[in-house]
């Protein structure tokens, strides 16, 4: 937007003040109604069993005032920070420098990720956190295919994660298959379930699709809980074999990797190996997705998100296109699940609740739908940031929630709010997400 932006005139500012005031008043009123019972009156059972209560109008007034002021602050932030009528005040040279900086984010991030186990070799906590973040990066990239590219809102993604995890756990504990054999199998099985889910939901759009996928995620979890003879029910599957370095176990024994290399054994080796394993899996996901975007199938996914009717008019089989999107996303979820199982050594249905689906979806939405870099940054912010707030103790969720709200006000279209064209003649210009569809089914 280099075009001159009209200066905000004083009448609009005045009406803005009235609007902010009105909104703050309404928020305060809602807070008053809610808090008058929750905070204003405190009840307790007395010593003889009767009900005693007392009032706390002071606290109530404080809370209502906080909501009033907070609402004004949020609204002001939205007006001054938000994308409404943003004016570029930076000189072009600074903008160019910023553009170069922006392009450098991905390589720098990648190099830093590679160096994490080298720099933090002694800090098990950071390595574990890195593995966790990378797992969610991979899940986010997998779900990005379904939600970000094809525009199909999937609230049950964790089901495929669970299928992948249980595939590896059961195949390895029952048949003794190795991780490297089970990994593709887990992906294939998850993709198979993705197609199975895909068939009934093909005709659904938007909210209805979200509800059915949500239900599907719960069904998988409930089946795992109740099919005791196969999955061990709520007790889960334990004793899942750890991954091997292509057949060489990472154990202190004589045939372990450390002995073969002639170095002293350390349990950190396995953590570092797991770190690079999930990094490789995540990068594979990323590479495949980037390649797919430039292939006809990827363009068809994005076209499907933009306009399904036009797709059909162009002879694109929307049924298979949607199914391939589901299957591809599910396959990556399955890989991530197999990794999760081998890393934990124990899995139970507890790990595959709706909260996981919501978290992965939040990562995709926060990152900017369809943007690979955005999803990686969002996973880092969501998982890493959550750890960062550990010092706030019981206020952690609150601080985290406020941070999310501020972030979405600042960047309503996600961290990376534009999509890169898949093919270009002269110059690849980023396209604002305002133009791109969000997908209605």
């Amino acid at each position, binding site marked *: 937007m280099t075009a001159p932006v009209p200066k905000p005139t004083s009448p609009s500012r005045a009406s803005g003040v009235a609007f902010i005031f009105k909104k703050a008043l309404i928020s305060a009123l809602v807070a008053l109604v809610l808090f008058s019972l929750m905070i204003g009156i405190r009840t307790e059972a007395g010593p003889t069993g009767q009900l005693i209560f007392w009032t706390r109008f002071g606290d109530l007034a404080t809370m209502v005032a906080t909501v009033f002021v907070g609402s004004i602050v949020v609204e002001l932030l939205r007006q001054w920070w938000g994308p409404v009528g943003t004016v570029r005040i930076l000189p072009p040279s600074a903008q160019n420098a910023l553009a170069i900086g922006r392009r450098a984010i991905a390589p720098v991030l990648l190099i830093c990720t590679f160096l994490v186990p080298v720099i933090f070799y002694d800090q098990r906590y950071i390595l574990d956190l890195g593995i966790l973040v990378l797992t969610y990066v991979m899940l986010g990239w997998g779900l990005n295919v379904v939600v970000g590219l094809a525009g199909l809102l999937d609230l049950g993604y964790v089901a495929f994660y669970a299928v992948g995890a249980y595939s590896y756990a059961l195949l390895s504990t029952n048949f003794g298959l190795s991780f490297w054999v089970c990994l593709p199998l887990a992906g294939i099985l998850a993709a198979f379930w993705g197609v199975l889910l895909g068939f009934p939901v093909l005709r659904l759009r938007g909210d209805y699709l979200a509800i059915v996928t949500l239900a599907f995620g719960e069904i998988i979890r409930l089946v795992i809980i109740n099919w005791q003879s196969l999955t061990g029910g709520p007790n889960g599957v334990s004793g899942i074999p750890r991954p091997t370095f292509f057949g060489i176990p990472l154990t202190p024994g004589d045939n372990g990797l450390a002995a073969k290399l002639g170095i002293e054994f350390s349990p950190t080796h396995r953590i570092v190996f797991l770190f690079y394993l999930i990094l490789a899996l995540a990068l594979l996901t990323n590479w*495949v997705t980037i*390649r*797919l975007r430039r*292939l*006809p*199938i990827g*363009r*068809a996914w*994005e*076209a499907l998100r*933009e*306009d399904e*009717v*036009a*797709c*059909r*008019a*162009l*002879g*694109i*089989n*929307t049924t298979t296109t949607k199914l*391939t999107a589901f299957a591809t996303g599910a396959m990556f979820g399955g890989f991530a699940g197999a990794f999760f199982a081998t890393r934990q050594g124990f899995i139970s249905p507890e790990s595959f609740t709706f909260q996981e689906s919501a978290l992965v979806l939040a990562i995709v939405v926060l990152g900017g739908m369809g943007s690979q870099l955005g999803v990686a940054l969002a996973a880092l912010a969501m998982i890493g940031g959550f750890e960062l707030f550990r010092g706030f103790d019981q206020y952690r969720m609150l601080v985290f929630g406020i941070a999310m709200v501020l972030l979405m006000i600042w960047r309503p279209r996600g961290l990376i709010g534009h*999509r890169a*064209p*898949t*093919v*270009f*003649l*002269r*110059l*690849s*210009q980023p*396209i*604002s*997400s305002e*133009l*791109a*569809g969000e997908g209605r089914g």
Partner: protein
Amino acid sequence: MSEPCILSVDHLLMRFGGVVAVNDLSFTAERRKITALIGPNGAGKTTVFNCITGFYKATSGTMRLTHDDSRTIQLERLNDFRISKQAKVARTFQNIRLFPGMTALENLMVAQHNALMRASGLTFLGLIGVPSWRSAEKQAIDLARRWLDRIGLLERADDAAGNLPYGDQRRLEIARAMCTEPALLCLDEPAAGLNARESAALSELLLSIRADHGTSILLIEHDMSVVMEISDHIVVMDYGVKIAEGAPQDVRDNPRVIAAYLGADEEEAIAVMESGT
């Protein structure tokens, strides 16, 4: 060349509940000719289009499409995307349906989906980047580039389709339909919302498409200057039935057409109403 007609519609009937949108309509569209379907608003023109292009399932009637090699396809038996894929019928929409968040070039690449899908070995060969896929992709980009050049949008190839001016979007949608290499191109009000200069350019584009590609065109249009200038054959509809057909000159002078489409005189209208009651 055994069959001169590319499309013959016979006794087409489309009923929505109690409403008969198209009633026993029969017409033919000749090969390498421009056939216009005109009529007042609500005459059922777009419904006919939706039946031909498979968006609606006709209540009854047949629609026979004959290709250059005498291959005949019953359109009413195909549905949805197969009309475009197998029967090679492409269409545009009354309210433009581009992919607004994709560039003009990408829009034209999506249109070549089926050809590219084959070339990429159903994605698998493309994923590992075999040379045959690379050359197929280059050809596809070249085709798109030629079309962009032709509609005067080469300069804006990398701009989002949603950012293009209205007239450009109309032309891009036609180019996108042509990228599917259709035998029959169905255009739903391509001149709607265009100014006089843009309409003239559109007429030229459609005539050149017919001349260079031998594509037969079926056209719904309200802009009489375009219809009269480029059509070889005109079918006039009103209230779901055909009221006239013929060469532009014949249709223009047909009193029923003048009454129905261009509006009857006030006395005539009163006479019609009185005879009705």
